[in-house]
């Protein structure tokens, strides 16, 4: 079960009860910006500091190196992520 470290603080197990990382973060009471929840608007962009995620569907939004879209992805390994402020 991959562990998710959020903003360098909280560490939570991704136990599969959320279909994607955006919902997972929301369940942890983390405020993440979002719009489409389908990978095409880019509003949910977060930083991936370490580890790997995999996309459930190919994102259409522009994603820079070191960033990812939580709305359409799940962790592959333990990850560290940062929600932009």
């Amino acid at each position, binding site marked *: 079960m991959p562990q998710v470290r959020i903003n360098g603080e909280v560490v939570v197990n991704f136990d599969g009860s959320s279909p994607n990382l955006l919902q997972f973060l929301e369940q942890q009471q983390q*405020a993440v*910006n*979002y*719009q*489409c*929840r*389908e990978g*095409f*608007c*880019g*509003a949910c*962009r977060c930083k991936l500091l370490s580890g790997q995620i995999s996309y459930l569907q*190919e994102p*259409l*939004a*522009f994603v*820079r190196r070191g960033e990812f879209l939580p709305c359409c992805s799940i962790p592959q390994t333990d990850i560290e992520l940062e929600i*932009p*402020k």
Partner: protein
Amino acid sequence: MAYTTFNRNINDQLKEPMFFGNAVNVSRYDQQKYPIFEKLIEKQLSFFWRPEEIDVSKDRIDFQQLPEHEKHIFISNLKYQTLLDSVQGRSPNVALLPIVSIPELETWIETWAFSETIHSRSYTHIIRNISAEPHKIFDDIMLNERILERAVDVTRYYDDLIDGINLYQRCGEGTHQINGKTEQITLRELKKRLYLCLMSVNVLEAIRFYVSFACSFAFAERELMEGNAKIIRLIARDEALHLTGTQHMLNILASGDDDPEMAEIAKECEEESYAIFMRAAEQEKDWAAYLFKDGSMIGLNKDILCQYVEFITNSRMQAVGLKPRFATTQNPIPWINTWLVSDNVQVAPQESEISSYLVGQIDNEVDTADFGDFDL
């Protein structure tokens, strides 16, 4: 150099830059330099909708009962959106098609602009329904100073680019005497105008619509003007995709992978890019003040909307590699996001008030009690 609708040069389209290479000859998608644009086309086509399918008849009653200051908010926003989509329905085609060099991007531009024409037609659908005199609303767009002020900034970068392209394609680089005036153009200058034009379009679709969207959804949160809100959701979904298309173009250009000179130009244009964002944000805040000049609406006021403008401006700036310039870090109206979610838009037809399905729905709602007096 002169534009041709079917370029006879046999070229390798995979080696063309996005813009200012050979004009596209064969529209082919078997090989693609940037497959993302075809994916955007497919997505846009999957979003297809027709204004006539959305039942807005209940809005007429709601509208009549709105207090005057809320009518002003509603109508002013529709006028402003009408202006924006009038521009967007034609300008990507006029400005970008003469200079685009790869087929998948050319077709994305056409698909994008086409979807804007749906938006334009939807405003007529809404306005015809709420007003017995729709012409008065449309006629005012060309007279309303608040709207015209915005039109200047919305169109300026398009017009500069189009003007430069005309000169370049007619006369080439250099200094030319045109109707007794001395005009100068270089390819580099044109590239700069293109970059700034895309930045300004990005700002248009990223920020300028959102004050209006927020008001539409604030009405709908009170179960008012819900037909309108349904249309605005479909428009907002399209706009999020357009924005993504433009962000891809800007980011590809700025990377220099496509055309090394463009990376330099993107750097050169950084200050002006900031200025375009900041100017649009200020104008949208002024617009919020104009909307609420006679009173706020439940759930929204000028200050909240201004904070929202700052919030989305920050996030849109980051998307194209700029630094946020406002202190606001929180979305002051988080409820708006639930209206912007894509999958909620695709409700099962029978749950929405899509009129083509409504016919069947009305039949189904006939209660058995209605047959009480029938002897079978």
